[in-house]
């Protein structure tokens, strides 16, 4: 919290600093205030070296609205004294605060550096196992040494592209080397890494597979539905027995397969249309027009129940 320095305290400090008595310092402070006010009123601008510029600014009348009543009213203009600090003071103020900012920002700058360094440290860590893998090989067979050197960049580069080569190279290498007794964990960890890498893709693949399975199931269901319809549609013994049995008493037992056996009249039942009748007797909906023509219905979509329909 900032402490407040009163006029009295300031004049005391001034007396001490300027080497004058307190009474003179007090008079000076009062004279300063009076001079600035007088100068501001008379000239409008008072420039003080080492402190700043005082300016009297006139604020014009303006209209405002009373929020409660909604009435418009006038705010009278007034004169105010504005202060602009000297450029030297401004710069010294900023420079004085700058060290504190730099102190605070310094660690902030330093912190990213270690963060940036850590990946560098990690990188060699990753590389170090590779040489360790290679060294036993060098001990075993000297001729193979150039080969791993070529392989190591391959292992580093295709990390993102394909996990398969990583597997192959490591399988040959690590199974030779791990006489220490850790072949399985390395393979497992690599598998885990791959799963981790392609986790998103795996999810996507799973979703697509599920969708395909669902589609197949739906298609097969549709086929099953269609097949029974096709079985019922043909003008065999079952259809007339179940559907038209009660309706067409004379032809219930002998569905009209031949023209001689086909009934000449059909009594319209609930839920029947000319199309269904056409399908029932002629195996096709195309005969609907002929039935309509013969019976001369004004509206084929609105035929009263129990109507006797002549069949062509």
């Amino acid at each position, binding site marked *: 919290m*900032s*402490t*407040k*320095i*009163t*006029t009295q305290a*300031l004049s005391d*400090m*001034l007396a001490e*600093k*300027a080497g*004058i008595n307190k009474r*003179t*310092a007090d*008079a*000076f*402070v009062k*004279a*300063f*205030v*009076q*001079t*600035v*006010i*007088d*100068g*501001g*009123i*008379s*000239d409008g*601008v*008072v*420039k*003080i*070296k*080492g*402190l*700043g510029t*005082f300016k*009297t600014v006139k604020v014009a009348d303006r209209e405002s609205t009373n929020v409660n009543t909604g009435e418009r009213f006038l705010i*009278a203009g*007034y*004169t*105010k*004294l*504005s*202060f602009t*600090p000297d450029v030297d*003071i*401004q710069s*010294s*103020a*900023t420079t*004085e*605060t700058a060290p504190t*900012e730099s102190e605070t920002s310094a660690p902030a700058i330093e912190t990213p550096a270690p963060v940036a360094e850590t990946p560098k440290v990690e990188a060699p860590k990753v590389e170090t196992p590779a040489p360790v893998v290679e060294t036993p090989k060098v001990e075993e067979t000297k001729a193979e040494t150039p080969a791993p050197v070529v392989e190591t960049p391959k292992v580093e580069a295709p990390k993102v592209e394909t996990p398969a080569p990583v597997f192959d190279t490591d399988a040959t290498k690590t199974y030779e080397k791990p006489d220490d007794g850790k072949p399985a964990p390395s393979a497992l960890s690599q598998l885990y890494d791959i799963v981790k890498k392609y986790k998103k893709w795996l999810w996507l693949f799973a979703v697509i597979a599920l969708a395909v399975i669902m589609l197949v199931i739906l298609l097969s269901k549709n086929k099953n539905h269609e097949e029974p319809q096709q079985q019922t549609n043909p003008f065999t013994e079952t259809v007339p027995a179940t559907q038209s049995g009660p309706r067409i008493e004379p032809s219930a037992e002998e569905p009209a397969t031949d023209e001689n056996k086909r009934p000449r009249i059909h009594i319209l039942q609930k839920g029947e249309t000319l199309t269904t009748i056409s399908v029932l007797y002629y195996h096709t909906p195309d005969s609907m027009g002929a039935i309509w023509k013969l019976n001369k219905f004004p509206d084929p979509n609105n035929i009263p129940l129990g109507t006797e329909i002549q069949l062509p």
Partner: protein
Amino acid sequence: MTQKQFINALAKNAGMTTTEASDTMDAFAALITDCILDDQTVMLQGFGSFEKKTKAERKMYNPSTKDYRTIPGSTTIAFKPSTLLKDKLNPGQQ
């Protein structure tokens, strides 16, 4: 009012010579500045108060270049006039 006119008027009001007034004014300005920069508020009775004001760092958008730029924070001196001064500047207004 220039610096010279101000010193002359100040010397007249304080009952000092111009040189004394100039020297004392320099000391007074330095004192006020030091106090403000030490996070102290300087209050002059019947005039107003000076205090340090810190402006925070902010981001500015330049619409022509469509670029964001950080304007660093700064410290400045703010002056708040007292009600007595306002009354003196605006006689007849409440």
